[in-house]
């Protein structure tokens, strides 16, 4: 049996026989679903946390400041400390086995919550650095035109802040996608788990695991490309 024949047989065994390719397709679907929903949740949490934190730093002096802002800032700080101070996998396991331990909960939802909350903490600090990078004069200009705090944030500060942190955000998205590969620990059949299932059935690790790795690689390359395009688009007003 020659080399190519061997490869073809391996391929047949791992993907064609018993429709094993369906594991991969389903797993990819789950991975994408978890990533996209977790990303959305993370962005919302991150933006809110970043705005609370940076507003607090801007507005509250040593003695002054609103009660709610101070309270919110403390909550945000606790959130950041706990989430960034413990491993993602431990957080996933705690959410699944402890917090939702006694109720039957959809595993996908559980993963979305775990990865979303986790990613939100990192996104918050990325966006906060973006907000802090914008000159205070921009803020004053908005307020002096009669725009309130919210509108100044939405129309003037955030667009510039997000543009400045786009590379760092892209990095975080890529990390998030790959981090979902630990979903298997709560028996969620994501892409990584799918590859591992096939390996367990065929006792032939090379094909399924390399296939899984290649799929991650292709998605990340696509994502990087998208971010580069977006960066270029947003850089239009930089031309001199």
């Amino acid at each position: 049996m020659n080399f190519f024949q061997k490869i073809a047989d391996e391929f047949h065994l791992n993907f064609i026989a018993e429709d094993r390719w369906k594991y991969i397709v389903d797993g990819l679907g789950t991975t994408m679903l978890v990533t996209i929903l977790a990303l959305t949740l993370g962005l919302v949490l991150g933006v809110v946390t970043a705005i609370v934190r940076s507003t607090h730093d801007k507005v509250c002096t040593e003695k002054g400041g609103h009660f709610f802002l101070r309270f919110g800032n403390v909550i945000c700080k606790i959130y950041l400390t706990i989430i960034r101070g413990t491993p993602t996998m431990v957080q996933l396991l705690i959410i699944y086995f402890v917090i939702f331990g006694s109720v039957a909960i959809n595993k996908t939802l559980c993963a979305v919550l775990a990865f979303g909350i986790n990613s939100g903490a990192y996104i918050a600090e990325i966006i906060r650095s973006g907000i802090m990078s914008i000159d205070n004069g921009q803020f004053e200009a908005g307020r002096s035109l009669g725009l309130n705090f919210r509108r100044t944030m939405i129309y003037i500060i955030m667009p510039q802040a997000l543009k400045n942190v786009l590379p760092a955000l892209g990095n975080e998205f890529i990390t998030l996608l790959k981090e979902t590969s630990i979903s298997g620990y709560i028996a969620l059949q994501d892409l990584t788990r799918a590859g591992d299932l096939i390996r367990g059935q065929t006792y032939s690790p090379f094909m399924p695991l390399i296939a899984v790795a290649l799929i991650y690689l292709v998605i990340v390359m696509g994502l990087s490309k998208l971010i580069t395009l977006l960066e270029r688009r947003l850089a239009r007003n930089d031309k001199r």
Partner: protein
Amino acid sequence: MINVEHLYKSFGDLEVLKDVSEHIEKGEKVVVIGPSGSGKSTFLRCLNLLETPTDGIITFEGVDITHCKGKDLDKLRQKMGMVFQHFNLFPHLSIRRNITLAPVKLKLMSQEEADKQAEILLRRVGLLDKADAYPNQLSGGQKQRIAIARALAMNPEVMLFDEPTSALDPEMVGEVLEIMKQLAEDGMTMVVVTHEMGFAREVASRVLFMADGQILEQNPPKEFFNNPQNPRLKEFLSKVI
């Protein structure tokens, strides 16, 4: 129009304004001069509450605004245009959008109305051809002219200028002052913090001299420059003229 009574402002232990009282009439062009660190800019920024006064009362059109907050404060600022030393144009928006953003988002105008008004304002400052450019493509003088147009788009009742020409190359100062002169001729109430003595002489209805957080002397420009009384002012004028 604007009345300031016993205004104090401190940053921590640093007392920047010490008992400043001042009355500005509608249509007046008040120019504030003085050495750096004298509190001129802080005084100006207190007028639209970009700085919160530590003590004292500011009234605008008869209403006490000192403790203005939220919507009232936003409404108040719509009536007071502000031009900054560093322009503070929004770099992510085209010139047209820089001018129309506030009137449109505050629902004072539709986008079409605001665009039309922007066109008129841009023609007024001589930069109609830059409507679709971005701030980074403009020179300093052009940026400041756009900043003036942006403030005017809110149809303010008073314009505050915080050293509008201090960050400009010398050859660009003239074009900005020219726009400000036109504005003065049109009857706009103006409060201008500046180092341009020529502008003060020519345009001001009153010149204030500030030092150490106080207004030490004020007079119409002729009297102010030709016959200064306060020794600090004499010293200051001898250095700058």
